[in-house]
């Protein structure tokens, strides 16, 4: 098919064709960026946590009284829960992965790098049952001994002799060496390296999702004095029932301390990723609506041209053009408009991305979103123009002989 006549016909309808092309351009710019955001956030949401997610839940405990009293309450609670049917294991902690609240500190392997921001780590207090309860994988070294587990008062500085770190943190601190046995500091300030790395776990993520160092965590053999979280692992498939039983048993044992914030790990995870999930839904909705609106514009425009050119189509048919040639005419016309739109849209996509990156610190748009987006709008254009083109092809040659 020769594009010459199509081009010259288009040039006589510059504004109408331009409006459609501009729509295509904007559509491409928006969906390329929207899909990028969708993929980015979906990847983030699907990051593994390292935790046995389906079986773990956590209960907030707030004892009242002197440190001695509150320690006794917490240990009695722990004992009670560990003995309940359906409970695989349990431990007391300050914070849970993906719970949204927790502690962080600067970790250093040498005295010069204590303040570099990428050496931050989340701090999780565990006892000898912590790793088993969460379902973490110990990949090197050993677990904590019961004798290492001590009480920690909030106003004291955290200074254990031994720590277990994640593989990600180990790699950050000791890029070329085995971390087990090495000395580090978790005090966040200048000082000696007082903590020995006794083990490395495969993965356990931080309480926060927006953190650059999502997998840098440190386990310390401590129990938190005062308010604490009791983390429990239930037998597979029994979490809902065990959770209820644990809450009831705790209240039944004593009403002298509060049992609150009973949450499954799944609930914590969903809450942490809620805004990311919301953004994915919003972006997908916008993309779908946008594609529908643009397709609609193309259909409307093409239908009008078909009506306007009914006589010319009749003449062409009378002069021997096949139906296929008529369909192809409109398809080629649409392809020309779409390609112009795509050319502009590629530039526009980068402008939108630049504005987003500037204003919001968003990532740069990877190049391959553009051909993908271009393919989508091109297919959309061809699909949208098909029905009007078919209608054009059904114009009988006899129209050429009618009137004027």
């Amino acid at each position: 098919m020769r594009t010459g006549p199509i081009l010259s016909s288009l040039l006589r309808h510059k504004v109408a064709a331009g409006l459609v092309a501009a729509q295509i351009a904007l559509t491409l710019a928006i969906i390329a960026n929207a899909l990028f955001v969708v993929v980015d956030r979906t990847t983030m949401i699907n990051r593994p946590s390292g935790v046995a997610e389906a079986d773990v839940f956590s209960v907030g405990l707030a004892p009242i009284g002197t440190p001695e009293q509150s320690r006794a309450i917490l240990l009695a609670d722990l004992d009670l829960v560990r003995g309940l049917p359906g409970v695989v294991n349990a431990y007391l902690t300050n914070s849970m992965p993906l719970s949204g609240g927790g502690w962080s500190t600067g970790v250093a392997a040498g005295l010069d790098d204590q303040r570099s921001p990428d050496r931050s780590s989340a701090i999780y207090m565990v006892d000898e049952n912590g790793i088993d309860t969460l379902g973490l994988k110990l990949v090197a070294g050993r677990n904590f001994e019961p004798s290492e587990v001590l009480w920690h008062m909030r106003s004291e500085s955290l200074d254990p002799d031994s720590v277990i770190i994640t593989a990600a943190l180990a790699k950050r601190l000791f890029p070329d060496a085995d971390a087990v046995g090495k000395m580090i500091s978790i005090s966040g300030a200048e000082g000696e390296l007082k903590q020995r790395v006794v083990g490395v776990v495969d993965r356990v993520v931080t309480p926060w999702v927006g953190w650059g160092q999502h997998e840098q965590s440190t386990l310390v053999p401590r129990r938190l004095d005062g308010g604490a979280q009791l983390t429990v692992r239930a037998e597979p498939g029994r979490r809902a029932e065990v959770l209820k039983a644990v809450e009831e048993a705790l209240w039944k044992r004593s009403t002298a301390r509060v049992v609150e914030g009973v949450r499954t790990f799944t609930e914590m995870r969903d809450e942490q990723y809620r805004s990311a999930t919301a953004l994915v839904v919003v972006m997908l909705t916008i993309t779908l609506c946008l594609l529908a609106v643009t397709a609609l514009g193309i259909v409307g425009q093409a239908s009008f041209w078909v009506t306007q050119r009914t006589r010319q189509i009749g003449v062409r048919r009378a002069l021997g053009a096949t139906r296929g040639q008529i369909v192809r005419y409109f398809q080629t016309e649409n392809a020309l408009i779409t390609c112009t739109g795509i050319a502009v849209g590629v530039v526009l996509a980068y402008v939108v991305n630049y504005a987003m990156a500037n204003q919001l610190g968003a990532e740069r748009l990877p190049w391959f979103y553009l051909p993908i987006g271009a393919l989508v709008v091109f297919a959309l254009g061809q699909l949208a123009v098909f029905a009007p083109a078919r209608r054009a092809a059904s114009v009988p040659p006899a129209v050429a002989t009618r009137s004027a």
Partner: protein
Amino acid sequence: MILYYIRIAMLGLRKQPVLSALMVLAIGVGVATAMTALTVMVRLGADPIPQRSDRLFAMAVDNWDAERPWGDRNGGPLAPDQISYKDAVALLAAGKAERQAVMYRVSLTAQPEREDLRPFQASVRATSPDFFPMFDVPFAFGGGWSAADDTARARTVVLSKAMNERLFGGENSVGQRIRLSDEYYTISGVLAEWRPRMKFYDVTNGALNEPEMAYMPLSVAFEKELLSDGNNNCYESPGEGWASYLASECVWMQGWVELPDADAAATYNAFLANYVAEQKAAGRAFSRPQLTRAVPLREWLDLRGVVPDDMRLFTILGFAFLLVCLLNAGTLLLAKFLRRSGEIGLRRAVGASKRALFAQYLTESAVVGLLGALAGLLLTLGGLAGLRMLTPDFAGIARLDVQMLLSCVAIAVATSMLAGIYPAWRASNVAPAVQLKTN
């Protein structure tokens, strides 16, 4: 005349019902997307305390690490979002503003006397007494406590409406006692319903959360060595024990001052500059003196980025989408009007002026816009409901008010009229004779 145009417009729309309906729907979807995003943006950014915001200033004190600022925004360094104990009590004691309040959030166990109520954790704001008059906090019963009470470490407490309902069934409980973490406190006041759109006085610890359940004197919280239940940030280890924690540069409190006019603000800032010099002389860091200042409330909320970046992204793309809908409406209106070239030619031939035709077609665009606004309103309500479901934090934010409702109609009509200008101009320029001939 305008009524006549509207009647013709309705006739015109009914002539191509499917095309017209699709146009209305397209404008509706575009307007709804933009309006959903805009409503949340505007309401998040709205003044949370309009009657007093020009008098309220946050205390920004930059006591942070000399080598590395606390944060940065648009390339410039930022002061910490909270202040240290040292600075909070010093600025409170100086009393250089008309009113000042320093505060932080703690968590205490409420132990109800009633047998049928289990103990529960209560979020409590420990604050100096100016908090209530400064922020226009409404009381249902009683009132706050005095500065003398605060100095005397009086065991006194103000309850929120919800807390009073939970413990006393909403009765006037002033003068009664409640037990919090094994200590009795006398109730000095009960708040009326108070739910500022944003907890502007503590944006660090859940800006969209409910206000605390109770309020207690700062001095009592210090005496009981209560740690903050919210964010605590230190750039160096605070050392052992409560005393060294208080002496540290850790930031965990919020500070606010009320300054009636620009002169008072200038005087206060001069006082702060002097304070910075004193602290520096005493050996503290204070290496970015320009960051220690009284920041106007609106500017403070902006600096703290209370509008999430995700919402800005949604708004940018929402308006880009509206632009597509505008182009789309332009395309369809052009096709629609020019399809009626015959009719236009006839009207021109029998004497309709270009201006009259232009006005008529623009009216038709506006009618499409009005119908689009209606569709847009319904879709916006749906969009906001969806957003509330996706992010419960927005429960109080993602709601349409009269102002946004009117903006919705205005945007829809403006969009479709803007889209209709060129098509109407083209239609009004159809030559009378030619069109009559071809038909």
